[in-house]
């Protein structure tokens, strides 16, 4: 006797004959819904080869052609439900927001370059950084087209701020430890590069340390160049603020704590504020050792 679960219902086979069955007939929503929820066991290959025949025998469909068209309708419905569910995950929203910020930054850069070239041609103002400010204070002094440009750029800056605010909110609830330790934006970027909070939580610290440095890592593995010390975590103030000699060490410490923070956030969301102070302490030790080279910190385990 074989018990098989199919997309159109449950079937029991006795000596190749259908003994019992409970099928859903042509109700696309109900069928898709059932696929969302249930956990299915596998069944043997012989039954698998007979799915069309069984569905026709049970009058779920009247022909092979109809079998394919009903199955396709059900699976399109089910696929849509799964996609909606995937996008509703908080880390999926965070990734969207980060991608949005990156897109905007790229646009702002392009537009600013264009604008500054434009102004070089048409006026005496030459410092691109000052341009936007100049526009803000006396927009009428510039040509109307350039004003439009500047307006677009400052609207993009506003939008960027809105996205950053949204990320902060999402990060505070989704990844509180990572937010405290790395900052919301950097934390979000790590989640995005890892492909989600779960993959980040599964990553060893050594990989986290080089997230965003894949080109350098590849060169290292292939050509034996110096291994990269840090990827996007270089943006962290404690790494950037370190003496160049210490950056590798502080990046390693930070990556180790980030790995812990991501795991805490993924598995429990319990908040451990001391993660950040531990990194700060290490930072302090390293900076002091750098200033007093004779008592070199490497002797301290």
């Amino acid at each position, binding site marked *: 006797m074989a018990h098989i*679960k*199919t*997309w159109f219902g449950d079937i029991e086979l006795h000596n190749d004959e259908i003994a019992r069955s409970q099928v859903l007939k042509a109700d696309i929503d109900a069928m898709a819904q059932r*696929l969302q929820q249930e*956990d*299915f*066991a*596998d*069944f043997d*290959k012989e039954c*698998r*080869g007979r*799915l*069309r025949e069984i569905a026709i025998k049970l009058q779920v469909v009247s022909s092979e052609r109809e079998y*394919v*068209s009903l*199955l*396709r309708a059900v*699976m*399109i419905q*089910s*696929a*849509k439900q*799964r*996609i909606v569910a*995937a*996008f509703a995950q908080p880390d*999926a929203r965070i990734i969207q927001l980060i991608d949005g910020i990156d897109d905007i930054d790229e646009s702002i850069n392009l537009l600013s370059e264009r604008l500054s070239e434009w102004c070089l041609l048409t006026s005496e103002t030459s410092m691109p950084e000052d341009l936007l400010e100049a526009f803000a204070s006396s927009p009428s002094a510039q040509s109307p087209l350039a004003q439009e440009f500047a307006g677009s750029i400052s609207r993009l800056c506003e939008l960027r701020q809105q996205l950053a605010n949204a990320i902060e909110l999402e990060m505070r609830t989704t990844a509180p430890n990572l937010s405290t330790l790395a900052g919301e934006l950097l934390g979000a970027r790590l989640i995005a590069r890892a492909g989600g909070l779960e993959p980040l939580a599964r990553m060893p610290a050594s990989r986290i340390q080089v997230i965003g440095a894949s080109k350098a890592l*590849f060169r290292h*593995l*292939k050509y034996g160049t110096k291994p990269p010390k840090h990827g996007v975590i270089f943006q962290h103030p404690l790494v950037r603020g370190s003496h160049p000699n210490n950056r590798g060490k502080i990046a390693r410490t930070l990556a180790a704590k980030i790995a812990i923070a991501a795991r805490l956030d993924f598995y429990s969301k319990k908040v451990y504020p001391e993660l950040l102070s531990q990194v700060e302490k290490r930072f302090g030790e390293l900076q002091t050792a750098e200033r007093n080279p004779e008592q070199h910190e490497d002797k301290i385990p």
Partner: protein
Amino acid sequence: MANCRPQSATPNNMKIRYHKVPGVFLLDKQLATKGEALYGERTFDGYRLWNPRRSKLAALLTKQAQVPLAPEQIVLYLGAASGTTVSHLANIVSLVYAVEFAPRVARDLVRLSERVTNIVPLISDAAHPDYGPVVELVDLLYQDIAQPRQAEIAVKNAELFLKPRGYACIIIKARSIDVTEKPRTVYKREVKKLEELFDIEYVHELEPFYKAHAAVIARLA
């Protein structure tokens, strides 16, 4: 009459020939299948051009490699992405079960399935197949997932869904398995893993269309 010809018509001097795989054509030297345009590819007289730089299957066919494709086949395709290759494959075989787990590209795949009547989209992780109740026995397992554990995933899916003596076409991207090894060393190692379940028929490299990629054509032992 001659100047009312629609833009997409075959230019008079273009030669249309059959490829050795039924359902595949050569317009001069360019690969094509028959159907309406689905992702912005160029069409001529109902033939859709199929770019060997955008599809590894097209690269294989352009190189005249042995690919076990036939009109009546049912195919399980792992790693469909937005469905570029799947859309042409659907012109060649009878039914494609297309598996993809990344929600962003899967959205395009679902849109494609709504337009093409012989594609069934499955939003699932091929490493943990939960499409057991859905997929029937298939004639061909096609895999293009660029994952370190891809051989294992191919074996698992073949055990569940491939007909006895069914075929497999498995794309290996050396870089996603081991960036430090020479591609050929990686291919050999992957082939060894596949031999656990399959008889290996050919290993084709996809140069010059794809660097450090190969396709393994195998048959369930």
